[in-house]
């Protein structure tokens, strides 16, 4: 399904209280591509992600997933085919690493042997040796290891769509690099469509096939990293200036 539109935002608005957190936003995400959403805190990035698996519903406009309005989807079926990785991971503290990774297959009623095999495969994929980590509890892991488990959990039933909300945000710079490399490797192995939120433009440019820049609930532009960097769009320049030190320092990080 590579190339087809998988997620479509059509003139979407989301109102929270009296403020519009998303206003008149349209965006198409094609199968197999990675779109990095970047912007300041409160720009509406996380809200946009939550519209995809209907943790939130739009106040106006519509969101289509695989050509169907999210409001017409059976919400459980919709969420099961969308992987979600959180900044604060949200691993189940009472489950082992393996049980955490196997949770969606378990909900889907997979046989035990298939679940175990899949969990081991995924742990290998994110660079955690199953023999060492499968039986550990989340509280016995480092922050980076936890985030890898979170990634493995989100990929468990090979979902067509993967949502990642600042997955590297809470990690120290070294760990951040490691997890990002693990993610890049996973990306190279799978055809999953990814929407990833970050507030770091260099990171967005490094990870995304396209970068969607958001400001105050609006989509400023969405284009390839190369064009985004050269764009003269004033709101983007403003964003770049506040971030200038990091941006200048690592032009192609």
């Amino acid at each position, binding site marked *: 399904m590579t190339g087809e539109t998988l997620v479509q935002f059509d003139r979407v608005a989301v109102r929270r209280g009296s403020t519009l957190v998303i206003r008149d936003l349209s965006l198409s995400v094609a199968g197999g591509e990675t779109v990095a959403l970047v912007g300041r805190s409160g720009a509406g990035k996380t809200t946009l992600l939550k519209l995809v698996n209907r*943790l939130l519903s739009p106040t106006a406009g519509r969101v289509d997933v695989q050509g169907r309005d999210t409001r017409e989807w059976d919400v459980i079926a919709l969420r099961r085919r969308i992987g979600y990785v959180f900044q604060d991971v949200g691993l189940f503290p009472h489950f082992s690493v393996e049980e955490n990774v196997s949770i969606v297959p378990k909900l889907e009623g997979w046989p035990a042997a298939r679940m175990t095999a899949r969990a081991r495969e995924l742990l290998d994929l994110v660079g955690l040796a199953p023999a060492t980590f499968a039986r550990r509890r989340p509280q016995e892991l480092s922050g980076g290891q936890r985030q890898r488990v979170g990634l493995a959990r989100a990929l468990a039933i090979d979902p067509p769509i993967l949502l990642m909300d600042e997955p590297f945000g809470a990690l120290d710079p070294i760990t951040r690099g490691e997890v990002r490399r693990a993610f890049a490797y996973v990306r190279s192995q799978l055809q999953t469509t990814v929407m990833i939120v970050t507030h770091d433009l260099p990171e967005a440019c490094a990870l995304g096939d396209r970068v969607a820049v958001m400001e105050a609930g609006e989509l400023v532009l969405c284009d390839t990293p190369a064009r985004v960097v050269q764009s003269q769009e004033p709101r983007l320049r403003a964003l770049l200036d506040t971030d200038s030190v990091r941006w200048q320092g690592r032009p192609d990080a």
Partner: protein
Amino acid sequence: MTVIRFWMAHRAELAVLVQQHLLLVLLSTSIAIVIGVPAGILAAKRPRLGRVVLVSASAAQTVPSLALLGFLLPLPLIGGLGPRTALVTLSIYALLPVVRTTVTGIRNVDPAVLEAGVAMGMTGRQLLWLVELPLALPSILAGIRVATVIGVGTTTIAAAIGAGGLGEYIFRGLSMVDSTTILAGAIPAAALALAADGLLAWVEWRIRERRTTSAAAARWSVAAAVLIALLAGVSHARADAPAVVVGSKNFTEQVILGELVAQTIEARGLPVSRKLNLGGTFVCDRGLRAGELDVYVEYTGTAVTAVFHQPVPSDPARAADRAKDLYARDGLTMLAPLGFNNTFAILVRQRDAISFGLHTIGDLQKTAARWKPGFGYEFLQRDDGYAGLVRAYGLTFGSQPRGMDLSLIYRALAEGQVDVIAGDATSALIDEFRLTALDDDRHYFPPYDAVPVARTAALLRHPEIGSALASVAGRVSVADMRAMNAAVDVAHRDPAEVVAAFLARVRARGSK
């Protein structure tokens, strides 16, 4: 060490009481879990409903246990004498800790973890069973632990309504003013509480340290439920034997008279089940009317005033006729009097009687202003009790009367905590504590002739009851009663033994 001797002598009974006690605690805690955990979950998810649930559970908790029992007794289905009412009461008390900790446990689940579950496509039910309940489990377990430990203590009140348990010894000991018997019940109850606390602390630790998986915990819970059901089945089967149920109120004389009635009926070959030491006139009367007691010994004066709320004729024969008529209208039969009149006695310390020259109740006018009276709760409530007494004799006491348990009142007088009390004319403690009964020269107190009262239906089904009780009619004199009371209260002999010896003497007298 006398306690150990007591246990050895009563080991079969002790085993039954411990089993009843455990069963009451286990069943009431289980009921509280079955109701409280779902209520707690609901309360956690709907804050407004939650407030209502928590407030009602707290309110129920503040009702004194005996009051709650008294309130439930007359209700159909859940009320009545015996384990059912006790279970309802105990479950209500166990509810609050379980509900509260369930609410806390569920509300404290990390929102990030919850959001992860939702985003992963868990249904509400899956979220509850896979995430919320397992994470709330340590908190819920802590609540169950509190409920169980409190339950072991509270269950001692079950004996007040004939539901058994270790409270039997405590109530029996209180009524006989015998600390050995009290300890015989209190020590095992305390040990059970400590053991339950330790066991549940261990379970909590296993779960917290994740040494026990949820699956193993589920298996254990099922095993425990089966065990409880089996125990309940066994004791229910045992309770099923058809028997004449004999009751008594909770003071020594009543226990002796209950035993007397029981042994007399047993001598006719009928099996008897004893529900002695019930919590007062009200409880016994309710038991009789509910068909859960077949017979107990009442006093004519008490029957007319306390049961039927009518004025009592001062002539003993007329009082007895009145009581008999009133009972007959309610399907109850008052049998022939046993022979003694246990009227109220207004008692003071002998040395006070001498130094202040007190002979009649009227003489109390000399000292009342400086004296502190102490009376049983029932006496303070009843029309023929305290209010009427002060009116009839024009007494004004210097302080409000102190309400006390009947079993403690003689000692309280002897030890100077109060200066004047109302006691039983037949009490052995009058001599034991060197007390003096003041003369009721204005005939304020009505006659209190001891009479067996039985359900007419039971008498028709087992005519032997009537003939058995006829054989002791008029055979128990005031002197006999005082002697038996003394044997139990002062010499600490077993009531059953004292009654058996007395009945042997009666038979010997009769055959001459």
